[in-house]
C-alpha cells in the first residue's frame, strides 16, 4: 500500500467539474418548478410610499407577486449570528422583503413568481414602487458624525456596536522614543465567486417537509437560521448544497432571497427557483473589508516595538450580516500584533451601519485587515528609525523557543519558527544583492521596490468554548461518520462543506492512508443536512484542521472495532493484533493475517462476532479542537514602477509558508496561488466605489477589476513544516494565508520603489493613475 498522505493526487472532484458534470443549484430542475425574480430598490435610502403590483399580476405566466406587506407578519427577521461580548450590539431589524424603508441599492421590496424566468423578469419590470428618497450615508467614519441620517431608527449615530480590547496605553505611548501614526483605508472588496448565488425550494405537503437547495458554505447553519425565520422546525427542513462554485465567505450568510423562495414554495405548493445575476451579485451578495483604521505604533530608536493600537471604523453595510460583527472584532482586533512579540496592544472598533451592501467575511476575514495594518506599520517604523525592514522584523518576531506564545490579548500561538521561513525567503531572493541592484537602477532613473510580509494568522476555527466566549452563536466543532460497507468500500459523511477547496480528495487521502485502502474506494459526502447529522461548515480555514480531525477520530473508531473482530478471527488476543497497510496480522507472525475487507464482511455477516461486539462497521466522531491553529510565513514581492505611467510591474513573488503537515501538496499550492491572487488583487486592482448617494459605481466586471492570470509572474513557493499540536493531524489550514500575507507585501514593495519620490503611503488599490499623480506631486523629493 503506497503512502497517500502527502501525495499530490489529482482532485477527485475535477473529473465531474471540468467536464461540466458538476451539479450546481441552478442546474437542478424539478417538475412544476417556477421562478422568482426580486424587485429591488434603486435607491440607497428611501421610504416606500406604495407598491403597485396590479400590472405585474396581470402579466402572462405570473402566479403571484408578493410585497413586504405580505411577508412581514409571516416571516421572522434575518438575524446576525455573531454578537461580540461587551460591545452593546444593537440588532438591525432585517425583513426579507422591505416594507417601509429601503436601506441599500438592491434591498428587495417585492418578488414575482412566474412560470418562466423571462416572464418573472418581464413582470418584475412592471411592479410600480413609489419611493421617497432619503439622504444616505456611505462612509464609515462620516456615518457616526452628528447630524448624519440614521440608517436604522434604533441605532444612534449608526453605531451598531463599540468593541474594545486591551488596556489604556496612553502612558506607554507618552514615554516612547518613537511613535509612528498612520491612517489606513481598507477598501471595500466584492467577492465575486464564479458561481452566483441560487436557491431552489420544494415543499412536500404530504410530509410537511421543506427542502432547500442553496449555495451555502454551511448548510446546517443555514438550516438553523432558516428554521427560525420560516417557523419550520429543523426536523422538517432539509438544506442541501451540492456543488458550490466558490464562496470566499460570501456564501456564509443567510440572505433574504432563499428565505423568500422557501416561503413562496410553501405558499404556492410549487418548487421555486431563484438565481442571482452577476449584476445582482455585485449589489446584494455580501462585500468584504471596508475599514478606516487610525493606527499608532510605539518603539525604541533601535527597533524594538513596544506597543500597537488601533481605532477602527468598520463599515457593516445596511444590516448586520450573519458573521458580519465578528469579522472586524474577534478576527481582527485580537491579532493586530501579528507575528511580533509586542508587549502592549489595544483595539477600539466601531461597527457602523451605512446605506451600502452588507459586509461579511471575505477570504481572510479580519486577519487581512490586521496583517495589513501591522505589516505596513512595521515598514513605516523601519523608515522612521532608518533601519532595514528585515532587521526590524528579525528583532521583533516571536522566537522559536517562545512557543506556545501568548499574545497581548491571550491568544495562544501554537507552534512555529518564524525566523526559519524568513531565512528561506531571504536566501531565495538573494536580498543583499537585490538591494545593490536597486541602488544602481535608481541612478538610471529606474525604480524597483522590495516588500516584506512576515505574517501569522489564526484559523482552524475553532474550539466551541472559545466560540461561545467570543459571541459566535454556534459551535465550531465538526462531525464525521466513516461508514464501511460490507465489501470494504467506504462512505465518509462530513459536517464541513467544501465548495471548491478539494477536500473530497484530501479527506479520502486521510481515510485511505489510515485504513490502508485505495482512495478510489472512498466517497466523501458533504453539504446535505439529511445525510449528515450536524456540522458547522467551511470557512476560517477550518475544514481540514477540524473536519479532518473528526474524520481521523471516526476512522480510528472503525479500526478499533475492526481490530476486535480481526483478533477473534485470528484467534489471538486483541493486543497481539497489528494493523498496517490494510492488513491485520498477529504480532511476530506476519503471515497470519486477514485483510480489512475480510474483517468488514465478517462484521456485516455477523455469523461469528466476539462477545459484546455489535454487527456492522462504522465510526462517528464529534471533534472539538483544542485551540485555533496559526499558519505563518514570510512573503516578499519585487516590483518595478514606471514613473511615466504609474504602472506597477510585479517582477517576483516569493511565498514561504508553514501550514503544518501537508496532505496534498498540489491542492495546497492551488490554495496558495488563489489566495495570493486575491490578496494582490486588493493591493493593485480591486475596490468597490460608492457615490455620495450610495450608488455602487463599480457594479460590473467592466468596472471592477478582478485580477487576471496574465497580471502575475510565476509564484515561487516553499514550505517549512511545523505541525500544530492543536489537532491530531498536525495541520494548520491554508485557504486564507495567501490573501492575508500578500496585500501588505505588495504595498510595501511599491512604497519602497517610490521612496526616492518621498512617497510614504498611498491608499489601495494602487492604480497607475494614483501612483503617477503622487509622483507628479512629489517630483521635488526626487
Amino acid at each position, binding site marked *: 500500500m503506497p503512502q497517500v498522505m502527502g501525495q499530490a493526487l489529482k482532485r477527485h472532484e475535477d473529473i465531474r467539474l471540468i467536464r461540466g458534470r458538476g451539479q450546481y443549484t441552478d442546474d437542478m430542475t424539478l417538475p412544476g418548478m417556477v421562478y422568482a425574480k426580486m424587485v429591488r430598490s434603486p435607491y440607497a435610502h428611501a421610504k416606500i410610499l406604495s407598491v403597485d403590483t396590479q400590472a405585474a399580476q396581470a402579466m402572462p405566466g405570473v402566479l403571484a407577486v408578493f410585497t413586504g406587506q405580505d411577508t412581514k407578519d409571516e416571516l421572522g427577521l434575518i438575524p446576525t449570528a455573531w454578537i461580540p461580548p461587551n460591545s452593546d450590539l444593537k440588532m438591525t431589524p432585517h425583513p426579507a422583503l422591505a416594507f417601509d424603508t429601503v436601506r441599500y441599492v438592491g434591498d428587495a421590496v417585492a418578488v414575482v413568481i412566474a412560470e418562466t424566468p423571462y416572464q418573472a423578469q418581464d413582470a418584475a419590470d412592471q411592479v410600480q414602487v413609489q419611493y421617497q428618497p432619503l439622504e444616505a450615508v456611505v462612509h464609515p467614519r462620516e456615518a457616526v458624525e452628528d447630524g448624519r441620517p440614521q440608517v436604522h431608527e434604533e441605532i444612534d449615530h449608526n453605531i451598531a456596536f463599540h468593541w474594545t480590547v486591551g488596556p489604556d496605553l496612553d502612558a506607554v505611548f507618552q514615554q516612547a522614543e518613537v511613535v509612528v501614526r498612520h491612517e489606513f483605508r481598507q477598501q471595500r472588496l466584492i467577492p465575486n465567486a464564479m458561481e452566483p448565488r441560487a436557491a431552489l425550494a420544494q415543499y412536500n405537503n404530504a410530509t410537511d417537509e421543506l427542502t432547500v437547495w442553496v449555495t451555502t458554505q454551511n448548510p446546517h447553519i443555514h438550516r438553523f437560521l432558516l428554521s427560525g425565520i420560516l417557523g419550520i422546525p429543523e426536523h422538517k427542513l432539509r438544506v442541501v448544497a451540492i456543488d458550490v462554485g466558490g464562496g470566499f465567505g460570501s456564501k456564509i450568510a443567510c440572505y433574504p432571497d432563499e428565505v423568500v423562495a422557501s416561503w413562496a414554495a410553501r405558499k404556492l405548493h410549487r418548487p421555486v427557483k431563484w438565481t442571482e445575476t452577476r449584476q445582482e451579485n455585485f449589489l446584494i451578495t455580501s462585500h468584504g473589508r471596508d475599514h478606516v483604521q487610525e493606527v499608532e505604533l510605539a518603539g525604541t530608536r533601535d527597533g524594538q516595538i513596544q506597543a500597537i493600537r488601533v481605532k477602527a471604523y468598520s463599515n457593516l453595510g445596511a444590516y448586520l450580516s450573519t458573521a458580519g460583527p465578528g469579522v472586524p472584532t474577534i478576527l481582527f482586533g485580537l491579532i493586530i500584533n501579528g507575528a511580533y512579540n509586542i508587549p502592549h496592544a489595544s483595539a477600539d472598533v466601531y461597527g457602523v451601519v451605512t446605506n451600502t451592501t452588507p459586509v461579511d467575511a471575505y477570504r481572510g476575514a479580519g486577519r487581512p485587515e490586521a496583517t495589513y495594518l501591522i505589516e505596513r506599520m512595521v515598514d513605516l517604523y523601519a523608515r522612521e528609525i532608518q533601519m532595514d525592514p528585515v532587521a526590524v522584523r528579525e528583532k521583533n518576531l516571536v522566537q522559536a523557543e517562545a512557543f506556545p506564545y501568548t499574545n497581548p490579548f491571550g491568544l495562544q500561538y501554537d507552534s512555529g519558527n518564524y525566523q526559519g521561513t524568513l531565512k528561506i525567503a531571504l536566501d531565495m531572493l538573494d536580498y543583499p544583492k537585490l538591494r545593490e541592484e536597486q541602488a544602481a537602477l535608481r541612478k538610471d532613473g529606474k525604480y524597483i521596490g522590495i516588500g516584506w510580509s512576515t505574517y501569522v494568522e489564526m484559523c482552524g476555527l475553532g474550539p466551541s468554548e472559545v466560540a461561545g466566549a467570543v459571541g459566535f452563536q454556534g459551535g465550531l466543532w465538526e462531525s464525521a461518520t466513516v461508514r464501511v460497507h460490507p465489501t470494504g468500500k467506504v462512505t465518509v459523511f462530513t459536517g464541513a462543506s467544501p465548495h471548491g477547496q478539494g477536500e473530497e480528495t484530501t479527506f479520502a487521502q486521510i481515510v485511505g492512508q489510515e485504513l490502508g485502502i485505495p482512495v478510489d474506494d472512498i466517497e466523501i459526502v458533504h453539504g446535505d443536512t439529511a445525510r449528515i447529522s450536524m456540522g458547522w461548515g467551511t470557512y476560517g480555514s477550518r475544514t481540514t484542521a477540524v473536519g479532518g480531525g473528526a474524520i481521523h477520530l471516526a476512522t480510528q473508531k472503525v479500526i478499533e472495532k475492526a481490530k476486535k473482530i480481526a483478533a477473534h478471527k485470528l484467534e489471538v488476543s486483541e493486543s497481539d493484533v497489528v494493523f498496517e497497510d490494510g492488513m491485520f496480522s498477529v504480532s511476530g507472525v506476519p503471515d497470519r493475517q486477514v485483510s480489512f475487507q475480510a474483517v468488514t464482511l465478517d462484521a456485516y455477516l455477523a455469523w461469528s462476532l466476539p462477545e459484546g461486539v455489535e454487527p456492522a462497521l462504522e465510526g462517528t466522531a464529534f471533534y472539538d479542537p483544542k485551540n485555533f491553529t496559526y499558519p505563518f510565513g514570510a512573503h516578499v514581492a519585487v516590483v518595478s514602477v514606471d514613473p511615466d505611467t504609474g504602472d506597477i510591474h510585479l517582477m517576483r513573488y516569493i511565498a514561504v509558508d508553514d501550514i503544518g503537515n501537508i496532505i496534498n501538496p498540489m491542492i495546497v499550492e492551488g490554495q496558495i496561488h488563489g489566495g495570493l491572487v486575491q490578496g494582490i488583487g486588493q493591493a493593485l486592482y480591486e475596490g468597490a466605489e460608492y457615490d455620495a448617494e450610495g450608488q455602487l459605481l463599480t457594479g460590473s*466586471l467592466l468596472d471592477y477589476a478582478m485580477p487576471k492570470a496574465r497580471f502575475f509572474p510565476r509564484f515561487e513557493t516553499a514550505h517549512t513544516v511545523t505541525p500544530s499540536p492543536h489537532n491530531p493531524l498536525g495541520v494548520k489550514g491554508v485557504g486564507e494565508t495567501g490573501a492575508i500575507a500578500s496585500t501588505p507585501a505588495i504595498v510595501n514593495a511599491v512604497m519602497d520603489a517610490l521612496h526616492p519620490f518621498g512617497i510614504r503611503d498611498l491608499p489601495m488599490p494602487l492604480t497607475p493613475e494614483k501612483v503617477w499623480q503622487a509622483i507628479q506631486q512629489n517630483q521635488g523629493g526626487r
Partner: protein
Amino acid sequence: MLTAPFEFRRASTVNEASDLLQQGTEVKLLAGGHSLLPLMKLRLAAPEMVVDISGIPELHGVSVHDGVVTVGAMTRHVEVAQNPVIQAEAPLLSKTAAVIGDVQVRNRGTIGGSLCHADSAADLPAAVLALDAQMVVSGPDGIRKIPASEFFVAPFVTALGAREVLMAVEVPAMPSDAASTYLKRPHPASGYPVIGVACWVGNGGTSVKMAITGIGSTAFRAVEAEAYLTEQGVNASSIGEAARLAAVHAPVEDDVTGYKRQLVNVYVSRALHQTMAGKD
C-alpha cells in the same frame, strides 16, 4: 440577465435587412452579437425586432482589387487578424483585430458590428481612421461610401442612415515599405483600450498616419503630430515633440489630473518607437 421579448428575423439579402430596418421603431441588426446581446441582457437595449444578418452572403469575404482591400462587414475579428490578404496589404488592421477582447470575443465579434456599434473605447476605429478606410453602405437610395473620418459622430453614433446597412470596409493597401503598430493599454477590468494608438509610416517616411482611440469621446486622428513628423521625418528626436503635440491637441475631457494627456504622450511615443523598430 434575460432579454425583454423581441421578434427575431433572419435576413438573407442586404435589401431584405434594409427593408426590415423600417418595420418598427426599434429594429437592431445582429452580426456577432458581442455588443448588442450584453446590452439586451442587461435590458439597456430592448429592440422590438432583431434581424440576424450573419447569413447574408454579400457581407462575407475578403478581397483585394486595384490596391484596395475589401473586408466584408461580417468578417470576424479572428479572420481579420489571420487573413493572409489583410496581413499582407493592411497589416495594421490585422494587428488591431488580433488584440480585441479575448479569444471568445474575437471568434464571434465582427468588424462591421464593432464599427457600427461605435463604442468610444473600441479598438478598430483607430485602425480604420489611420488607414483612411471607407465604409461601404447600402440603403434605400443605393450604395454609398462614407470615409472613416466622417463615420464616427459621437459615442455609439455613426453617420449610418436609419435604413442603411454596412456592407464592407474598403482599406487602401499600405505602401510596401510601411511599418505599423497598434499599441493598446487594456483596462484591467474590461480589457477595452484606455488608450489605443494605431500608426503607420511609409513611402520613405513621407506618409505618417496616426489615430487614437479610447481616450476621447470618439477615436480621432493626431493631425498635428502627423504633420510635424511628415515635415521633420520620423526619428528619435522628432518623436518626442510629436508625442507632445498629440497630447496637447488631443480632445480629451474630464482630465483633472492630466493623466489622460500623459498617456497620449507616452503611448504615441512608444507606438512610434515600436513602428520604427519594426522597420529594421
